[in-house]
Structure formats: C-alpha cells, structure tokens
C-alpha cells in the first residue's frame, strides 16, 4: 500500500497522478463511458426478458459452435494485439505491425462469421421486429446489441489499420499502438458478455 504522503505527492500537480499519459487516460475514460452504453443495453435486455418468460431459445448446437468460433477469433486477435503492443514497446515496429495485421485478420474473420450468422438468421425469417421463434423483442435485442458490437469491431479494425500503417511509416508511436490495443481489448471484453448472455442463455437444449 502506498503511504499517504506518497499518495498526496502524486496528486500535487505537475505530473499525472495515475502515471498514465493523457492519451491513455482519455482512452480509458472513453472505454468506461462506452461500457455504460453497453451496460444500459444489457440492462434493457434483461428488463425486457424478465417480462417475457417465454423468451425464445432458438440457438442449436450449430449456432453455438459458430458463436464459439467467433469467440475464439476475437480472443486470439486480442492476444496477438497484446503481443503487438509489447513488441511496439520494445521498439520492434515490424513485429508489432505483423501482429497488428494478425489482429486485423482475426477481427475480419469474426466479422465474416458473424455476418454469415446474421444472414442465416435473416433467411430463417428473423428481422428487427419479428422472428419465427416467438417474442419479437428477441431479435430486436439480438440485432441491436450484436449490431452495436459489430459496429465497434468494424471501427476498431479501421483504427488498427490506420495505426499499423502509420507505425510502418514511423508516424505513430508505441503509445498509439497501446491505446488502439486498449480499444480492441474492450471490444473483446464486451463480447465476453454478449456470448453467454445472448447466445448461451438462448440455447435450444431442453
């Protein structure tokens, strides 16, 4: 534990009390805010689901495997991103760029599988306002939350590509890579809640 005088010294001005750059602090604050948007969406989903005990559970083993595959892609891309940040920190820009490209590939795979899944559901008759399995709100919530997440993944990919290009031409620093990485991990983190709450709780098993 930090003793009180030391703690007070951190806050006495002239330096960052958290020992983080404001770029990083800003990204963390953004992440906290964005997390609340998702939290509110999740709470809204929970609220509506509480009021509908007959909530549909249409995901069969195929869908769950697909979603698990998506989870695998996203988790792996997060891991490569973490490595990219470490490489960038060590000054190994080319290795960092390589790992960022791997990350982008992971993200793209996630998006592609996700889009295929959406197409599959839409072909079965699912839309924002109706679906063949019962309570129409089910697909409303599903498409809204996963759509929001997809938008985040897509924008994260753009950010990663921009930073990777800049890093390659030495216009970006390790700080930029780290901050882009924070955003990417956050996108991953949100999926860690979407996967169980949306998919696993709507499994067709029993």
């Amino acid at each position: 534990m930090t003793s009180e005088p030391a703690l007070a010294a951190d806050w006495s001005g002239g330096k960052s009390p958290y020992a983080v750059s404001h770029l990083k602090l800003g990204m963390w604050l953004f992440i906290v805010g964005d997390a609340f948007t998702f939290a509110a969406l999740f709470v809204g989903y929970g609220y509506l689901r509480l009021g509908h005990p007959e909530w549909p559970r249409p995901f069969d083993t195929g869908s769950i495997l697909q979603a698990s595959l998506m989870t695998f892609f996203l988790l792996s891309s997060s891991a490569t991103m973490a490595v990219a940040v470490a490489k960038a920190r060590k000054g190994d820009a080319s290795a960092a760029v390589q790992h960022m490209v791997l990350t982008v590939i992971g993200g793209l795979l996630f998006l592609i599988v996700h889009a295929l899944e959406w197409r599959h559901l839409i072909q079965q008759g699912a839309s924002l306002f109706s679906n063949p399995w019962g309570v129409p709100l089910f697909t409303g919530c599903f498409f809204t939350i996963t759509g929001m997440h997809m938008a985040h993944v897509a924008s994260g990919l753009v950010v990663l590509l921009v930073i990777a290009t800049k890093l390659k031409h030495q216009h970006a620093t390790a700080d930029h890579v780290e901050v882009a990485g924070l955003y990417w991990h956050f996108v991953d983190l949100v999926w860690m809640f979407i996967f169980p709450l949306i998919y696993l709780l709507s499994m067709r098993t029993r």
Partner: protein
Amino acid sequence: MSETHAEHEAPRSFIRRYIFSMDHKVIGIQYLLAMLLLAVVGLALTVVMRWHLGIRTVLRPETYLSLMTMHASLMFVVVTVTPTSAFGNYFLPLQVGARDMAFPFLNMLSFWVALAAGLVLLSSLIVGAPISGWTAYPPLSAVGGVAGPGLGLGQTLWLVAVALLCVSSMMGALNFIATTLNLRTRGMSMMRLPVSVWGWLTAAVTGLLVFPVLSAGGIMLLLDRLGKTSFFVPSGLYLGGEVLPHQGGSPLLWQHLFWFFGHPEVYIVIVPSMCMVTHIMANFARRPIFGYRYLVLSLFGFVTLGGVVWGHHMFVSGMSPYSGLAFSILTLFVSIPAAIFAISWLMTLWGARIQFRPPMLYCLGFVSLFISGGVGGLFNAQSSLDIYLHDTYWVVGHLHLLFAMAAIFSVFAAIHFWFPKMFGRMMNDTLGTIHFWFTLVGAYIIFLTMHYMGFLGHPRRYAEISQFDFLKPAASAHTLISVVALITAGAQILFLFNFFWSLFAGRKAATNPWNSTSLEWTLPNPVPFSNFERDIPVVHRWAYDFELPGGAQDYEMQTAPGPSMDGQTGKGVPTEKST
C-alpha cells in the same frame, strides 16, 4: 503527448484561428456566443407561450406543445452546456495552469457537434416540432406521426439532436477529466484547485457516467421509430384507427433510462453553477471559503447520490411501489450535500465586508434561489406528497427556480466576473445591477406563483385551462405570470445590450480588476495563445487566501510563496475559527 498546445504555433489564417480553432479560449467564447443565441431563441418561445397562456389565446394546442417541447429542449442544451463548456473551456486550463486542454482537437469537435445538435433541434422547429415534451415519453414519441403532429420527422430530428449532444458531451467530459487530472501545474494539488475547477470536474465525471445511458436509450428509441422494434412500445396499441404492429415493450423502460441520465443531468448543470458561485463569492466577500474539504466531499456525494435517485421522477409512473419507497428515502439524503454548500455560503458571508458588484449580486441571487428551490424539493422528494404534486405547475416552478433561474444566475455572475479576462473590457455595473433586480424579482414572482398553481392541482403542459372548473382560479395567476414574464424577458435586453456594448465600448480592464487570486488573473489581456508566455507558474497556495493577517494587500495570488491557510498547511478553514 503529441497533441498538446505548446508544440504547435498559433495558426495564422482567420478560419483556423477563430472558426475551426483548437484553442480552448476561442472554443469557450464560441460556446458562450452560440449558447447565448440559442438561449435567446428559447426565451422568445417563452414569450410566445406566456402570451398565449396568460394574455390571449393565439396558438393551436399542438403548436403550444411544440413550442413547449422546443423551449425545454433548447434551454436544456443551453444550460447543460454553458456553465461547464463555455466557462470551463476557457478557464479550466487557465486555473489549473495548463497551456490547453488535453485533447484540443477533440475539444473543437465537441463544440461543432454541440452546435450541430442545436441547429438540428432548431431545424425540427421548421419541419414541425415534436409535441412529446423534452422527456419524449414513448409511446407518444415512439410510434411516429400517427400519435400526433410533429411526431414524425420532427421527433426523429429531435432524437438525432440528442444523440449529437451525447457525443459532444462525452468528448467534452473526457477532455475535462484528463485535463484536470493530468495537466495541473506544479503545486496545484487537488486540494488547492479553485472550487470552480472542482465543479467542472464533477460535471464532467457525472456526464461521462450518464450520457452513455441516454445514448443507449436514444438508440433503442430510434430503432423503435425507424426499425419498428418494440423496446418501448407494448402490444396492442390502437392508434389512428388501427392496431399497431409493435409487441411486448415497456414504456417504463425508457422512463428509467431517461431519468437515469435526466436526474444526474440536473447536477451536471447545477453543481458547476454552485461551484462557480462559491468561487466568485469568496472573491467579493474577501473571505476564504468556509469548509473547502466538506465542499469537495459533498461533490462526491452529489455524484453518487445522483446515480441512485432517478426514480423520484417516477413515483406515480406505475413503477413498483417498493422502488418508490427506496428512491424517496435516498432522495431526501440529497439535502445533506446541498445543505453543506448552503452552510458554506452562509459562513463565508458571515461578517464579511461584501463588495456589492454585479457578479456578487448574481451570486447572492443564486443562493437565495437555490435555497427556495431546494426547500421545495423536500416536498417533491416525499413520495406520498408527490402523488399530488407530480406533473403539476409546482414541479414547473420548482425546476425553473433551481435548474433554470439559479443556473442562469450563475452564468450571469460568471459572465460579469470573467468578462474582463475574456474580452479585455469591463461590463457596466449600473446596467448589471438593474438587470439583476428585475430578473430576481421577476423570477420569484413567476415561479412562486407557479408553486401556488401546483396547489390547485394545475397539470403542466396544458395548452388551455378553459375546460376545467378547478382551474378557474388559475386564470388570474396565469395573467400575472405572463405580464411579469414579459417584463422579465424584456429586462434581458438590458443584459444583452450590456454584453455587446461592453464588448466594443466597455472600460478597458486591468489585468486583475477584481483583486482575485487564481491563475487566470496573472495573465495579460488578451490572454496569449499558449496562455503562459514563458514557464508555467508554480502554485504555492489555494485560491482563497483573502484577509491574510499582516499582508500589505488583502489577498495573495496562488503563485505567491509564503504561509497560507490552504488544505496543505491547515484544514482548509482558517485557524481563527473559534471565537
């Protein structure tokens, strides 16, 4: 740290310098002027509405409701943004000793998005403004034009404006927090920050916590409107001669999400207002702030309590009565941080040699309005009494006393106080004093009368009162309010005249005309592009060392070394406390 100010030169071209500027000072003034413009529009709507309600019926009911919605929404944008964005932008970096905000580009973006939000709102006035009120309760706001005029495109534009405001506020909030935490100069510890900085920081933290929730709600409402989802629309609504296709949603969910944002929103406005008033008041009372540490603590209280009392807007909404019970008790506890502030003001003023200049007058007016509005809240907070008071004119009067009048008084105080630093000239004292008295008396007559109309049970948002016998006694009250409101609105011309006249013809201001202590007053007029020409000064004391014993002058600048009464050496309160 690639984005800080010091690294780039002052831009040369007019557009980069004054229009798309990244300089926090220019952005602060842009905010102030844009919000003054919107406030004038909002006030003009009031004039029309008051003419209609109290003097002669001139509007169709739907037009009245659109004007009411637009008045509330515009003023909501204005009062949300002005105390923090206008003054915070200009003075937060100066008061903490920074060369600019942490993210100048984000800052610029934040302003332009906020302006876009204002303009989109105004454009909805042109295509037919929504009639659903600023709370936009579904189903009225969710099912489109079938529910009433203005609920088609107008309501969609309204929602777009709200979304833009969310984005702008988020960008502003994280900028303010990062700046306050990371860019303080050496010696500017948290307990030496001017209270105004604490206020802006608190507003930013609150904004960061709650605006995302509103944007989530906004996304769902937009999808209900455009994507025909049913988050907020229940099954089997019969409107316009047909059964709507929506199924299974809950209007209460929107109310919860909205007020989860909406109540802290009140603190986003009033807390920086309170803090600016505290700061300015100490200056004109020539006294150290009483209980600085308690004030900081109570700010934490406002943030946390603000997050758990939203349900007091929903006592009769059909919410679970057990929730109502909990929200009611929690709400009563808000009186504690509020009382701490009131006691601090009282103690700061007690026995002080007060200088009655306009900024101080507005501060005193603020305190009086704050107390009046605050004690009114003790009625609303009691759930059983709120059954009667809810959605009556009592609430309109209460919210205007606090949320509108007190907040606007703090803005007046801040404009008069900081005008010399922002524009290099002084505003006229006589005009300011006359304007103050007109506005204060007007505000009290108007809004206390509205409290009385609440006793009659007069529901708010009524375009006319001729239909009901129990509203007959309210007719004369409406007339009184309208006449006074027209006079008070007219008195605002005094302020506008004073503002624009002083801009060009006011007396030239000295560097530190008010003998004030915080860092912005060490800077010349106009403040240079990178704020501090050479090195950023080191701070040695808090901002409230007035009446120091044995000094040649009755104040010490924060940059002056020497013994101080601040939080570092004492307890934040002067030692001669017990007499």
